[in-house]
């Protein structure tokens, strides 16, 4: 486990937390070029104790983002490649009978790590998927009647390739709800791509990257996020947005109360990353697409080509109280 070399005594002070955030952003921005929005969102997602779903075509840096997050935040990392023959035991682990001791011994699966990259999660069968999703929800796994706690903090970054349709099991809406955010990577812009092509191998850079925060620091950051101020005015705004998603003709299924809670939590985390005095409407708007994109079900025959477009339309239709 990689540990940062910062002064740990100071990790709970505001300055130390701020410095950690800024360093993390800088480190991540150095590896993943031109994706500041996605970096900030995924940082906010982890700080809000949420799981992240990255959905995009291969080769756009999904895995790189997950690995960088683990490395920069000093988290133990496991990658599970989801395939159609993946079994729940391959994720959780199995009890093996030891001849010399005459007892069953539990062999932990890859899920016992602080940050799990569930790669191409839609390739596995629903059975394997639900093994992962259940442990995400419960923060623990049960094997042979024994409940085992997962490490703290525990994050799942799942990736999904929307282009693949044959032989895949796309996550159903109810399961999508377990991910706090869903983001898309998108192509890098010209300059970033040029830098990427001309620069060093990203994997080598990743190896050289030092952790900027300890586990304690991360837990302290999560606590600070929970303490971010949410004013009545902001609640009004979030309620107005939620109400609109429920009443709009363009949306068949609007945000649930859990979705609204997710919106509040993510807005707080984003505000914290952005160093705002409280959660601002700007923070709500910044996380809205990532929060709502996979939770809203557009009405049939809608004029919006993508969930992002629909979410932007909602933001453009609701006045800020």
């Amino acid at each position, binding site marked *: 486990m990689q540990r940062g070399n910062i002064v740990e005594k100071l990790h709970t002070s505001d300055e130390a937390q701020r410095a950690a955030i800024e360093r993390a952003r800088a480190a991540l921005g150095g590896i993943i070029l031109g994706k500041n929005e996605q970096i900030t969102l995924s940082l906010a997602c982890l700080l809000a104790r949420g799981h992240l779903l990255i959905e995009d075509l291969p080769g756009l840096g999904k895995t790189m983002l997950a690995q960088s997050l683990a490395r920069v935040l000093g988290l133990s990392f496991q990658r599970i490649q989801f395939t159609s023959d993946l079994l729940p035991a391959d994720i959780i682990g199995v009890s093996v009978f030891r001849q010399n001791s005459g007892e069953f011994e539990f062999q932990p699966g890859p899920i016992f790590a602080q940050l799990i990259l569930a790669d191409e999660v839609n390739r596995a069968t629903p059975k394997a998927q639900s093994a992962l999703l259940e442990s995400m929800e419960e923060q623990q796994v049960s094997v042979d009647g024994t409940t085992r706690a997962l490490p703290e903090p525990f994050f799942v970054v799942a990736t999904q390739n929307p282009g693949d349709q044959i032989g895949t099991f796309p996550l159903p809406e109810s399961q999508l709800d377990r991910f706090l955010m869903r983001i898309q990577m998108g192509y890098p812009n010209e300059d970033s791509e040029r830098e990427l092509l001309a620069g060093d191998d990203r994997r080598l850079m990743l190896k050289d990257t030092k952790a900027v925060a300890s586990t304690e620091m991360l837990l302290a950051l999560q606590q600070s996020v929970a303490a971010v*101020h949410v*004013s*009545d*005015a*902001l609640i*009004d705004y979030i309620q107005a947005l939620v109400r609109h998603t429920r*009443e*709009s*003709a363009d949306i068949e299924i609007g945000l649930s109360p859990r979705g609204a809670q997710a919106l509040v939590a993510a807005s707080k985390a984003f505000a914290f990353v952005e160093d*705002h*005095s*409280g*959660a*601002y*409407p*700007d923070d709500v*708007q910044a996380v809205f697409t990532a929060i709502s994109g996979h939770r809203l079900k557009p009405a049939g025959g809608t004029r919006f080509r993508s969930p992002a477009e629909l979410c932007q339309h909602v*933001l*453009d*239709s*609701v*006045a*800020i*109280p």
Partner: protein
Amino acid sequence: MMTRPRGTDGSLLSSLPWTMTALAVSIVPHLPYLPIWISIALFGCMIWRYAIEKRRRSLPSAWFRALLALACFLGVLQTYSTVSGVGPGSALLAIMAALKLLETRKRRDQFVLLFISIFLVMSALLREQYLWSLPYLVVSIIVIMTAWLRMSAAHYETARQSFLTGGRLLLYAAPLAVAMWIFFPRIAVPFWAVPMDTGTATTGISDSMSPGDVSKLSRSDAVAFRVKFDGPTPAARDRYWRGLVLTVFNGRTWSMNDPYEGARVHEIVSGQGDPIKYQITLEATRQPYVFALDMPWSWTLERTFMGPQQQLVNARPIDQRVAYEAVSYTTFSTDANLGDYARSWYQRLPDASNPRTRRLAQEMRNAAKSDKAYIESVLRKFNTEEYFYTLEPPPLGNNSVDRFLFDTRRGFCEHYASAFAVMMRAADIPARIVLGYQGGEINSMAGHLIVRQSDAHAWNEIWLEEHGWYRVDPTAAVAPGRIDLGASDAAFQGVGEAWGLSAPSQILHRLSMTIDALDAKWNDWVLGYGPDKQDEFMQRLGMHDPNWQKMMLTMIGLILGLIGLISLLLALRYRPPAKDPAAILFKRFVRKTGLEPGIGETAESFSRRAMQTGTLPADTVRSVTTAYHDARYGPADESAIARLKRAVGTIG
């Protein structure tokens, strides 16, 4: 001339049925009065217009529509031979609505149609305001409101939501309407008069009587008037409701002289026994006759006098329902003096008419010892010989009394009264016919007596020396049940079956009594809310010496108060949550930038835009935005508000 597009694109498909429903509902009360071709045209145009929209066809051309409009106008003119008045007016409205449908292309046209619907609903009230008018009004206005809301509704809004909104709007308006209705000063003489359709027949007694006139009435159960007695209700056999008196006979028809104001009632009539006091609510008759219990002594209806034959006449036709109090004596005697001329007038018969009756009268008079004995013998003849009381008497020729007495022997009260009067006059006994009502049905639920058109009755009065005018009812000799029970009670208690009346079942009867009681209350409290009632009500509310200025001021005050209250309710319902000081300050800043913030635009992005335009210094914008964020969205901090105030204050 610009030609407008005639094609349809199906965009009205969702709201058009509602507009048509509103139109259909508003036409319902007119249907019985409209010529059939107008109703057919209206519903035909609805179906046609809907089919056009459904199949995306083109609307008919302007030329065709103009021709159609002209044809319809001429049609209305042909039917009514005028275009003013309630009948032709509503006919024109209905047909124009039908034609408007054929050029309805946009929402604006539908608005026009809904306006026409409202006009149609209101114009139905000009005809008559029944008990069911109120529920009908409520339903039709809600339907029209729903149609209205359907036009502007978002497509996801259900019809139920629109309907509820319409109902809620009506609920907001209801207190205003009630306040105006109560307080708007009523005046005795209305400012305007609605031109009524002349020539529309009202069922009721007319001023002449031919055989079959009254029996025709007996089929109508329309209410003639309702009576509320102060004391106990007199027995049915005493309930003769005096109307008009017929004196002239032409061999077939009895008619009257135009009554003039005769001698004062108290000089010729003297009542015996206890006076009976009661209130009558008389339905409109379009005739000047006023009905009262025989014999009326005093009455409160204005411009009403007693004619020379003790008939009550109003100076004007009774065009609307009137209520009056009256006092009568059921036992009375009238002036015993009758001049020679008057006596001969009441003995006059046309020369060549009904010869057989006259011969018979002469024979019977000669056989009798006195006038009284003669009368007895005539009544006995009706009673003992084969005479039948029937609602469907056979037709009689010119010498109607001869035909009736000797051939058909079947008749209704007017046949007996007529025959009896002729028999009397033929024997030189002065006689006349009184037309009015007899009996009436007691509605124990409402505690009043209903007198219907079917209670119409004709009886006789004969003049006897030393006694004066004396009431004789020959019908009582033939069908005593008719007099003892009254027409409706007789019909109800099974006696009526013999007369061809069907006996209604108990439940229906009770239901009709309930409706009658409600109807009477409605007439009394709602339609009868005139100057007197208003005055009384105002005094009960505590207004001293009510006059129209006071009522008007109260009404205006009340309306303003109600509008204030409703506005407050609406404001509480629709206003965004109370603004905090930070929001107010930021709004001031927004105004000063001169920029219009977009929907969903955050303070941050607005500030960025404001900085780009450069109307305000960038650092001011910056500090305002930061302070606003801290004050509005940060943890409670007084200094943030102060900073914001300062920052906004620095702007000119």
